[in-house]
């Protein structure tokens, strides 16, 4: 009687010689790919022990990550050298917990990203305006997402604006003004999460309106290029994105 062990040996040898090992091209989401991609935790575990500084560990992580992708498809990264064609522009918060590329489960090349304190845009800020101009004129992206989030430090700072000086105070002034304009309504809510969430939503709506009224957006729309501006809130406590349904199109 053939033992299971010898049967499995035969299967293993047959697999090796039949070329079933050939790696499939990985163009799907990591969760959809039939081969196992190393998770961040697994990569962390592989990083060789030693007296690394934090940035050295990040470089080690990246080396293992890129080798993992190349092991599936040697041309995985070469596919990106032809230029970028993202489907969406994300204007979100710099907060380390709002990892936009991870929580949206997108592949590299799908989202053009601008991240700053409290996902703000103003008409005299050439930084964010340059991002939007490149998005609309060069990349011809049709969807722009303004994404706020709960537990936002920038929103908390805006509710306490007197404590801040320097560039931060100047940057959050529009949000502080928004807070003043809606103070009665926001202060009626319980302090902490509720007030942060309410002001965060108002801020997203404010930015959606600003972006919708920009000259470059109006010009693109008049020229027949659709530009849809969505307002979302990322709920850190559940990991879910809420569509605030304030889309400007």
């Amino acid at each position, binding site marked *: 009687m053939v033992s299971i062990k010898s049967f499995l040996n035969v299967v293993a040898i047959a697999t090796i010689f039949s070329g079933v090992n050939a790696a499939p091209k990985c163009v799907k989401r990591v969760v959809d790919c039939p081969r196992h991609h190393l998770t961040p935790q697994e990569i962390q575990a592989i990083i060789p022990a030693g007296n690394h500084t934090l940035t050295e560990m990040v470089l080690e992580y990246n080396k293992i990550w890129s080798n993992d*992708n190349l092991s599936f498809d040697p041309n995985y990264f070469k596919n990106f050298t032809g230029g*970028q064609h993202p489907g969406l522009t994300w204007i979100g918060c710099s907060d*380390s917990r709002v990892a936009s590329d991870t929580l949206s489960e997108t592949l590299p090349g799908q989202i053009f990203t601008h991240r700053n304190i409290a996902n703000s845009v103003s008409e005299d800020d050439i930084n964010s305006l340059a991002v939007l101009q490149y998005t609309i004129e060069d990349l011809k992206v049709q969807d722009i997402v303004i994404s706020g989030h709960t537990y936002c430090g920038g929103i908390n700072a805006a509710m306490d604006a007197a404590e801040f000086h*320097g560039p931060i105070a100047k940057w959050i002034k529009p949000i502080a003004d928004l807070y003043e304009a809606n103070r009665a309504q926001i202060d009626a809510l319980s302090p902490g999460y509720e007030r942060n969430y309410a002001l965060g939503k108002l801020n997203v709506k404010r930015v959606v309106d600003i972006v919708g009224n920009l000259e470059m957006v109006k010009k693109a729309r008049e020229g027949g290029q659709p530009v849809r501006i969505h307002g979302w809130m990322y709920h850190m406590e559940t990991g879910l994105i809420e569509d605030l349904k304030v889309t400007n199109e």
Partner: protein
Amino acid sequence: MNSRAFSTLQRSSITKLIFQAKPIRIHRGYTASLLNSIRKQQFPPNIKYVHNSPKPVPALSLPEQILKYNKEWAKNKTKADSSYFENMTAVQTPEILWIGCSDSRVCSDVLTGSNFGRVFTLRNVGNSLSTTDTNSLAVIQFAVETLKIKHIVIVGHTFCGAMEAAFKYNSLNGPISDWIKPIADLYNKNKPTIDALPTHKQQNQALSELNVKRNVDIINSLDIIKKTKKSGKELNIHGWIYDIENGSLQDLKVS
């Protein structure tokens, strides 16, 4: 009727249709002809129900796709660790400030495995800084003063669109022209060296590396950085380049 006129598949799909069809309420006053016309609407004669093909689903737009995938991602994360997201709501304690490019191919979170709240991120066109830009200065101030970040990494990359824009600066106008100007000036200052390089990829990469060095110098010259270093707090500035062709980060050693 010959039962073999329909294949098993056809029979099963017809059965499915019959049982899935909306029930017709029989009220008084329904004539046979009315019932027939209702039946025709349920089973329009011009559609061939010959195989079990699913109704075509319209492709999702990217925002709709993201909302859908995000729900699955959140569910999977919670299944693996039920308190994963609750733990995130505590105050953030990242140790690295990443100043990188908005380029969709340079996903800072994925490259660094930073979905643990490790990397505070500033991403803009051409990973550029200037001493007059409130946007990036606010991020740096928040990172250094409030979050007490220990490492600032400025990451340029190959095949950068901002470098291409700097090469053709004279054809730009609007906010992007003002934004790219420092990089265009850097290009003009180093034009002979850059233009002498054999391939366009190398010219783009050379300007990108010079731009990273320029930004490292700008950061080192900021008052807030000088103050922090003088007070003895640990603060390291690094310049890196991400090679899109092989997915690897390299330290340019320009600290």
